[in-house]
């Protein structure tokens, strides 16, 4: 059998250590910077475009010699219009209250479910794993219509509806009419429950993927600590909360970031579920129409101010998430470095 580790000279070994520590020779690090920067440029280009376009004024657009630095600025008006088109502060409040809250719920509930899959063997686990896979595969769009039809009268296997009818029948026997106040199958459309409930039960937006990430992570955790806790008499919940969770800060942050980004960007579900107050994503979708209706701003070469305001709108839309990510990814890196050392 070939042993790739033999026949290595002493000098080469030292060299290997040096390379490993520095991360490569100068040439390699130049190459690395070049590659990362060029790909990075591709990534950041739209963002730069957005920023630059959103601060230009219509006059500068007509000056075709400008490429990056606009010759004329119009920041205040563009952004004022953008704020109004999105109804920003209201929409932001709604976004935190509905989608983001359900994102947080999702992160927690998926952790519990993932732990159950990862650490325990129960009857029907294989079938449930298959269904989990199905949950990952099936896009939300397919289930929207049946779910919406049910949300008018939220029911669980018809049980609540049955109970309600029973109670009404009994009440009618006594001659009283309590149908108006007793409603076990509520109409939850337009309330936050349309998003909170599924997330609480682990069927939120892309929950399947998050559960899968948790499963992969928890399976990789060393069992020794948990076994020790078991022996000491801790119940499963306590084990989970006191042992598994603290070691999983990496995956929690990862999942949190994913979930928040997905919920923030979700315009499909939020536009269907909410008809009175809008979170930010549907407001973004309707922004183009708003610009036309409110200020007569249309696209095309003739009126470039629409492009400027649209870019301002897009920037306003992604800024909160960007700020969130900037803050949290520092914790990401730190916890990553910490975890790597154990084991």
């Amino acid at each position, binding site marked *: 059998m070939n042993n790739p580790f033999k026949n290595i000279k002493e000098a080469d*070994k030292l060299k290997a250590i040096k390379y490993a520590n520095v991360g490569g020779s100068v040439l390699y690090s130049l190459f690395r910077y070049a590659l990362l920067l060029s790909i990075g440029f591709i990534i950041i280009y739209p963002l730069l475009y957005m920023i630059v376009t959103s601060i230009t004024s219509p006059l500068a657009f007509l000056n075709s010699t400008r490429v990056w630095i606009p010759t004329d600025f119009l920041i205040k008006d563009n952004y004022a219009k953008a704020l109004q088109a999105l109804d920003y502060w209201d929409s932001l409040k709604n976004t935190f209250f509905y989608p983001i809250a359900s994102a947080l719920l999702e992160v927690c509930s998926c952790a519990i479910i993932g732990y159950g899959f990862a650490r325990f063997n129960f009857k029907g686990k294989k079938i449930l794993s298959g269904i989990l896979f199905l949950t990952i595969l099936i896009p939300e769009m397919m289930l929207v219509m049946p779910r919406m039809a049910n949300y008018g009268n939220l029911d669980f296997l018809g049980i609540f509806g049955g109970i309600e009818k029973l109670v009404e029948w009994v009440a009618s026997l006594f001659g009283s009419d309590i149908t108006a106040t007793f409603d076990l199958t509520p109409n939850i459309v337009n309330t936050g429950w349309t998003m909170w409930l599924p997330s609480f039960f682990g069927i939120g937006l892309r929950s399947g*993927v998050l559960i899968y*990430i948790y499963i*992969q992570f928890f399976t990789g955790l060393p069992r020794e600590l948990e076994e020790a806790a078991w022996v000491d008499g801790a119940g*499963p919940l306590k084990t989970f909360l006191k042992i598994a969770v603290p070691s999983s800060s990496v995956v929690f942050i990862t999942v949190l970031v994913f979930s928040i980004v997905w919920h923030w960007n979700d315009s499909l579900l939020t536009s269907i579920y909410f008809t009175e107050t809008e979170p930010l994503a549907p407001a973004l979708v309707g922004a183009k129409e708003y610009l036309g209706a409110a200020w007569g701003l249309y696209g095309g070469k003739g009126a470039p101010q629409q492009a400027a305001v649209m870019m301002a709108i*897009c920037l306003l839309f992604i800024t909160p998430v960007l700020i969130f990510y900037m803050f949290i990814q520092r914790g990401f890196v730190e916890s*990553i470095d910490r975890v790597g050392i154990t084991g």
Partner: protein
Amino acid sequence: MSKLKKSRGIEELKSRYGFMFVLPWIIGLVMFFLYPLIQSIVYSFSDVAVSPGGVDIKFVGLKHYIEILKVDQNYTTELTTSLTSIVYSLPIILILSLVLAMMLNQKFRGRIFFRALYFLPVIIATGQVMKLVFETTDDSLTEMGVSGGMASGMITVEDLTGMLNMSTEVAKFITTTINDIFNLIWSCGIQIVLYLSGLQSIPATLYEASRVEGATKWEEFWFITFPMLSRITLLVGVFTMVELFINERTPLVERVYGSMLTGQYDKPSAMIWLYFIIVSAIMGVIIFLFNRFVMKRYEA
């Protein structure tokens, strides 16, 4: 003997506990997933009309499936286009994100900035923002027949034909290729993050040991990194496949979504269920092969 009983008791206890952990999920499944799912399947076998108080279903059997396979001339071509695009994109995305993650994992100045940068596409591209940005940058390109994309802002067909005197065909090809590269890089964000966290969880002691032994970088990768990443690779692979599958830019999915947005639920459901079955078959095969040949060998 009592020991046996005890262990069996523990096993049973554990399995009951496990069940309790996933019980909320099961409840949620029934209410929010399985019931709508079955209804969606039923839709694909019936004529669906929405009326006040519910959805009217008229069972018609295999009519829609036959229709999309025989009558609709676009479906089969769209199907093959979508599937081949998945097969093309999957290896590139996996390899590219692994390479980038490995680079970002090393200690160099500015790595935090770069890590933040590479996640940016995920924040921006998963929503409607990219579509809106495309629409504003896409000026005269549609006349030239090149579909819009960010590349249109960076290099335009006119630049290529004008400055470098290329023919329109070559210019179009280059622009579309750059477009595709652009799209691929933009789809790598989540994969890079997952690979990063996977790379981070490989204990540094392994690397140190191998360095002491004098392993080259190449050997280090194949014998330490790659095996330790096998579970993560499976996760990333599954995730990427699903993303590609339900990516809205594939013509099939675009058509299905467009139909559902305009109130059609029967035929699009049939279209997408057929698509599902084929894609899950493919995914199942890939995962099985992966488990068999890679995981077994490099069981971590």
